[in-house]
């Protein structure tokens, strides 16, 4: 299959591309990229000429051409934090439905967290996920292995073996590693395999029983609060441990002003730490749960206006280098339960782009800066070849209509998880085509 994308506005932070041009795809790989406006070409004239010649021949009719005038072309997004729920919770999501939701949302690489059943704490589970993804996945699935066996925080999982089987990072996400010594060991041991340790920062003793942000609203709604300090304490602990060990630390789902400040401080000190936030942490405040809407229940919880502002500043100054979705699909019945018993999480893959583009409208980020946080940066942190339109790389491309206005309607999600607090929101910017490893999907 040969595909030619013509006259789209191409943005690829990995090559510093921001201009109108064409991309030619053959055999599932990017063969050629040519940008007209600016002289940013990635290949020699000779090669370009060759392929041009070939295209002008008889085969031209076999080439599918996508007229991308008025559209924006990005590297397929990389989501370093999703829950695909398989194995074990197929009623919430499967690798098939989760990856379909991914490509619909513009993502072509997803890194799936290990809190499945069984937990991905063993190479056999990793192997299962890799096989399943190869058979049914619509995009690249890269598993994240558990730090500790069963995510119980007591014994290290076989990080090395799982890395060989395909795990690219390690995390007990969903749970923190409460034991500081265990976290220290994880950061130390992981250095041998050069893999990042992703920390879900939550002091469970402080957050115990909590279901939303602690503040006046938690008091007036009678919901137990989780103080921002429950996150900050662990962010700081892990920063100190990263400094102590020299391990690669990545802070998942930053939700509070204090955490942003701590990460900024750590970077200033030269500590190896990276951080991500999620669209809901810069789009919604704790007010979203006022009416006991469990679709807005998420962990860490939605915070305050002040936290949103701090997160935006953190995104702007590079303290937070990644926007991930923390896509956490749940069954509708589960979210219809008592608020304090409903599971936490937001189905995020299909709203991430629209919500994140608001940052560009608000002038928090430029479009290339935003795309960098959704492509290049997560790839760098995870040490993977993705999120680029480099010649020779997989044809993972998303073509977006920036002006397309739409209303979020969860019924239309490809994900099994319809749990979103953004239902009914008016957003702008939607993928119209996604190429995942060269395969074209039109929306």
């Amino acid at each position, binding site marked *: 299959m040969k595909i030619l994308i013509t006259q789209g506005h191409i943005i690829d932070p990995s090559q510093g591309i921001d201009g109108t041009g064409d991309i030619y795809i053959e055999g599932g790989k990017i063969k050629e990229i040519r940008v007209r406006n600016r002289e940013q070409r990635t290949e020699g004239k000779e090669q370009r000429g060759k392929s041009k010649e070939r295209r002008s021949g008889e085969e031209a009719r076999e080439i599918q051409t996508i007229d991308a005038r008025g559209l924006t072309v990005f590297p397929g997004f990389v989501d370093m934090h999703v829950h695909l729920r398989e194995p074990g919770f197929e009623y919430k999501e499967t690798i098939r439905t989760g990856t379909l939701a991914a490509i619909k949302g513009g993502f072509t690489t997803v890194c799936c967290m290990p809190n499945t059943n069984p937990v991905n704490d063993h190479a056999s589970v990793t192997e299962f996920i890799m096989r399943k993804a190869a058979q049914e996945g619509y995009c690249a699935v890269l598993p994240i292995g558990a730090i500790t066996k069963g995510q119980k925080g007591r014994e290290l999982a076989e990080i090395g073996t799982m890395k060989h089987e395909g795990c690219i990072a390690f995390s007990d996400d969903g749970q923190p590693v409460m034991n500081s010594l265990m976290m220290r060991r994880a950061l130390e041991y992981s250095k041998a395999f050069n893999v990042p340790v992703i920390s879900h920062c939550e002091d469970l003793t402080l957050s115990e029983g909590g279901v939303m942000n602690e*503040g*006046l609203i*938690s*008091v*007036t*709604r*009678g*919901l*137990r609060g989780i103080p921002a300090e429950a996150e900050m304490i662990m962010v700081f602990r892990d920063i100190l441990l990263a400094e102590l060990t020299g391990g690669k630390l990545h802070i998942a789902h930053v939700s509070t002003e204090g955490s942003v400040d701590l990460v900024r401080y750590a970077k200033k000190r030269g500590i190896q730490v990276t951080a991500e936030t999620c669209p809901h942490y810069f789009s919604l405040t704790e007010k979203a749960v006022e*009416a*006991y809407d469990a679709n807005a229940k998420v962990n860490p919880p939605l915070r305050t206006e002040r936290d949103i502002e701090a997160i935006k500043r953190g995104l702007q100054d590079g303290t937070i280098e990644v926007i991930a979705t923390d896509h956490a699909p749940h069954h509708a*019945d589960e979210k*219809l*339960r*008592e*608020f*304090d*018993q409903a599971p936490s999480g937001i189905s995020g893959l299909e709203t991430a782009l629209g919500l994140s583009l608001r940052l560009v409208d608000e002038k928090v980020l430029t479009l290339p800066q935003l795309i960098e946080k959704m492509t290049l940066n997560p790839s760098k942190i995870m040490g993977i070849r993705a999120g680029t339109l480099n010649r020779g790389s997989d044809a993972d491309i998303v073509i977006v209509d920036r002006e397309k206005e739409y209303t979020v309607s969860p019924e239309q999600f490809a994900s099994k998880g319809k749990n979103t607090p953004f239902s009914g929101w008016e957003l702008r910017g939607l993928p119209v085509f996604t190429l995942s490893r060269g395969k074209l999907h039109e929306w």
Partner: protein
Amino acid sequence: MLNKKDLLGIKELSAEEITLILDTAGGFRDVLGRDIKKVPTLRGKTTVNLFFEPSTRTRTSFELAAKRLSTDVINFSVPTSSVVKGESLIDTALTVQALGADFIIIRHSSSGVPHLLAKKLRASVINAGDGINEHPTQALLDAFTIREKKGTIKGLHIAIVGDIAHSRVAKSNIYSLIKLGARVRLIGPPTLIPAEIADMNVKVFHKIEEGLKGADVLMTLRIQMERQDKGFFPSTEEYSKNWGLTPDRVALAKEDAIVMHPGPMNRGIEIVSEIADGPRSVILEQVTNGIAVRMAVMYLLSGYRR
């Protein structure tokens, strides 16, 4: 006219609506004083007490209120062991509605359950206590009792002593008393009074003597023994020593101050017997007024027109 389908909390009511409920309760209070304590007002209607948390007092009070309005009453108790996971909440509620319930009185240990169900049900939902959120009819009966004793609530100094953080009774009372113009003081250890509550136009005292000085109404809350295990206070003895309602402390309040307790009391812990049984205590009147207030709520909700 209230024109509401449900009574979910005092938060959702205006001062006028609260006053309407109290005025209406006056009419029902008269009925309760007669030989024939029953009126035909809601005959043909069905009330279901859907209690996910055991409570004999509140359930009995609602049951009597419903019966004195001539509705048929069914008690539907659901044991909610988190281990035994049976029917979902919504299914249970829909089943109860399908039985023909016009009023569903809900008590649940999770905050927000009445709000969740009210959206799904045609029947009127009355919150009989949800988690640590609200217990609106208790606050209404307290306001009714205070008004009966003091003539008005406006301008009164009302002290609430105890576990404000975990008390739905305290929350509902704070909302209603502030709306009705009282000056509310909260008294208790800092571990049991959320710091954010100071933003709600209340005065917080950690020394009970300071808080009771010159108060018109003293309301003390039941202290839950299990709070001790969670480190909210070291022992019931120490709690009692610092925040128990004793004659010496009550003497600091106004001479005609009344003493209230939502029950059930832990005698000797948050209140000593001399006070509970003393002349200032209106604790048993609160119980009687509870029926009148609940009748008023049911009557007013029955006036809801879609």
